[in-house]
Structures are given as structure tokens and as C-alpha cells.
């Protein structure tokens, strides 16, 4: 049989495409249905040749699954050619297993078609399309057991080489006081050094208080902060119309 034969059986157009078949059983079933062959009495010799021609035509002859089926068909064909034993009870139809598989596959196809139409119907109904972003995941549950905590504390203590003890003395910032003091000083003179406001060896909290107070006064337009160079001492100029120049 040549490849042109595969194009027509009984003069009917016979067009096959590679992706039209989901496997060798599908192709086999197609050949059988196309020619209205009784599945229980398959003319194996004909079908085997058509199958081989078809996979060659389709360019799928490299596919192991198809080749395996082709080999199987040829084996069945050969076995049918062997003389049958006289005793019928001993003889079994070499096509039986193939027929069983074809029927099973046909049934699978029927279910697949059913699923396909169900999925198509279902696909015509849409769920809500916009789902808000999930909020931040909830924090993990925290499991605390005393033993674990004690153990962790001991590990931390062991890891510490020297205990460092800090003494913390509360000394709140006094921005109001600093502001008042700067205003008083500026009332007497037009220029001040930062040092003059905070005095010798000031506490850090005083420095910060004064700094914030100065920035606030500058914002209010009561003082001008002048610094000649970066990192240099800066001068506070009282911002009255006369002192601005």
C-alpha cells in the first residue's frame, strides 16, 4: 500500500493530522470507524498496513508508542497466518487482547468527551474576577515553654564574654527651658556662640535641647544660624530687623 492509498478509502476523502490523534489507539480506532469495521472482527492485515502507512504519512513514525502498536499489529497478523490447531478449545483469537484494549479505550474516549462538554458548559459561567490582595499573613503562632526560654537565656549568657552593665539616668530634654534661655541671651546681645549657650562640658541632653530650640527659633524667624565652614562653631544671630544686616 502506498501513501496515496491512505488518502482515500472507498473513495472517501481521508485526511489525518498529527495532532488530531492522542495516541496509537486513537489512530487505530479512527481507521476502524472510518471503514465501519466490526471491532470484534478486525481485518488485521489491512488495518496493520493502513496503520503503518498512516504513521509514515503523519511523520510520527519515530514515536515509540506508535511503533510499538505497529509491531503489535504485525505480530497479531503473523499469528493469524499460523495454522490453527484442530482443537478449537486450545486456540485463542490473537486479536482478543487488542479488541479488549480498543473497547476500553473507546470507553475512555466517551468519558473524555463527556468531561469535555461538561468543562465547556462550566467555562461559560465565570467566578468573581477580581479578588482583593490577601492581607499580610497572620503572624505565626508563638509557642512558649519555660524550658525553652530558660535554655535560650542560658545559651545567651554563655555566649556573652563580659557582662556589660549600663546605668541609665533619666534626664529629659528641656526644649522649653533652652528656648527661654536663648531668648533671654538674645535680648541682651545680637550675636551668640553655641558654646556660650550650653556652657563648659554640657550634658548631651542639654546640647540636644539647645539645638532643637535653636532650630525652632530659626524656623520662627527669631534667630539666624551662621556657620562659616562645615564642622566649625556656629554663631547665632538675633533676627531683629536691625540685626539682619
Amino acid at each position: 500500500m502506498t501513501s496515496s492509498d491512505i488518502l482515500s478509502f472507498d473513495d472517501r476523502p481521508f485526511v489525518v493530522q498529527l495532532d488530531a490523534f492522542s495516541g496509537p489507539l486513537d489512530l487505530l480506532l479512527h481507521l476502524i470507524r472510518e471503514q465501519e469495521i466490526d471491532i470484534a472482527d478486525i481485518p488485521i492485515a489491512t488495518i496493520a498496513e493502513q496503520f503503518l502507512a498512516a504513521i509514515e504519512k503523519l511523520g510520527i513514525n519515530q514515536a515509540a508508542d506508535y511503533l510499538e502498536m505497529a509491531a503489535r499489529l504485525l505480530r497479531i497478523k503473523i499469528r493469524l497466518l499460523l495454522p490453527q490447531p484442530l482443537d478449537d478449545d486450545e486456540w485463542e483469537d490473537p486479536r482478543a487482547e487488542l479488541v479488549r484494549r480498543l473497547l476500553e479505550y473507546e470507553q475512555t474516549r466517551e468519558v473524555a468527551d463527556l468531561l469535555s462538554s461538561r468543562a465547556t458548559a462550566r467555562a461559560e459561567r465565570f467566578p468573581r474576577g477580581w479578588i482583593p490582595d490577601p492581607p499580610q499573613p497572620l503572624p505565626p503562632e508563638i509557642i512558649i515553654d519555660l524550658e525553652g526560654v530558660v535554655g535560650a537565656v542560658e545559651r545567651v549568657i554563655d555566649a556573652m564574654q563580659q557582662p556589660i552593665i549600663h546605668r541609665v539616668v533619666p534626664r529629659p530634654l528641656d526644649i522649653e527651658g533652652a528656648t527661654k534661655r536663648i531668648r533671654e541671651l538674645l535680648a541682651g546681645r545680637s550675636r551668640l556662640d553655641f558654646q556660650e549657650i550650653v556652657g563648659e562640658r554640657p550634658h548631651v541632653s542639654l546640647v540636644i535641647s539647645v539645638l532643637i530650640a535653636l532650630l525652632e527659633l530659626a524656623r520662627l524667624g527669631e534667630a539666624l544660624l551662621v556657620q562659616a565652614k562645615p564642622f566649625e562653631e556656629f554663631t547665632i544671630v538675633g533676627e531683629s530687623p536691625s540685626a539682619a544686616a
Partner: protein
Amino acid sequence: MSANHLAQLLEAALFSASHPLTLNELRGLEPDVSPADVRKALEALREHYETDEHAFELVELAQGYQLLTRREHAEALTEARIAHRPRKLSAASLETLAIIAYREPVGRAEIEEIRGVAADGVLKHLQDRDLIDVAGRGEGLGRPLLYRTTDTFLAMMGLNELSELPRLDQLAVALRPLAEELPETEGEGEAVPAEEQPEDS
């Protein structure tokens, strides 16, 4: 809609989920509410959507509840490119799903035997799409993975449970027991060595 607080909560929940919610999940919305209360409120919602001709309806899917638009709007929505039909499954995927749905839990070898094609690519694809998952391991050589269909599969098919599919003997192609069909077929015969591992399915 009535001022029923439970019905409102249920609607809010169903509205903000893109997948079916089970009765248990819905019960979590309100403490001390019985399954019967939830069912009654759901029924009221269903009726309300029907009576007031809302564009969506309450559907039971995958043993849960979900709001879905009515089929009659499908065409207008897809033509206006507002909603999109999901991609169709390939024949290979559908056949594999068909086999798993009716035989689960089932291993790769059996699926390949029925389809006559290697199945690993399709199985992976179906797993990635969450249409099947691994149910466990079989007893045989190499303890093969066994597959089953998922709730996503049910939801995709518009099924509440697998038993809604027709029984195999209700299909047009009913597989009669082999013995009836072809009395002479037991045992493949020695002439075909190593060809066919006897499957016990």
C-alpha cells in the same frame, strides 16, 4: 435581601472568593451557627438571586458553594473581552482525567496501558494545574505513585462530587466482562513473549 445578618455575611464571603467555599468554611464566619442555619440562609440567597434576576447564581460545586455568572451572559462577556473562557484541555489531558476519575487511585502504568501512550508529561501537566494529585503509593514494584482527581477538577467540570458522573455501565460503550465478549481469551499465549504484562485492573 432581608436584613438577615448571616445571609449578608455569607454573601460577602461567597462574593470575595474565586473558588467554592465549603459549609464548614462558611460556618466559620459566625460563631455558634448550625449547618442547618447556614443551609437555610444559602437557600434564601439562592432564591433571592433567582427572583431578583441577578446576573450570577449560587452553585454547588466540589462540595462547596460558589457564585457564578449565568450562562446566558457568557457570550456578551467574552465578546466584550471582560471575562475569558479558560483554555480547553487537550485530548490527552481529558483521556487521562477520564481514566483517573473512574479508577482512582490509579498508577501511571495503568493509565499508559489504557491510553497506549506514555503518560508522565500529561500527569505532570495535570498536577501543575492542580487537577490531580498524588493519593499515595501503590503496593507494586517500585511502589508507584497513585493519582486521584482534586476539588479543582470537580469545580472545573461543574461537579459536586465524582459520583455525579455516569456509571461505566451507563455509557454507550459499556465494557462487558471480557469472558462474555470473547470466551476464548484468557491467557495471552506463549507465542507472544514479553509483550504484555498481565494487568490486574
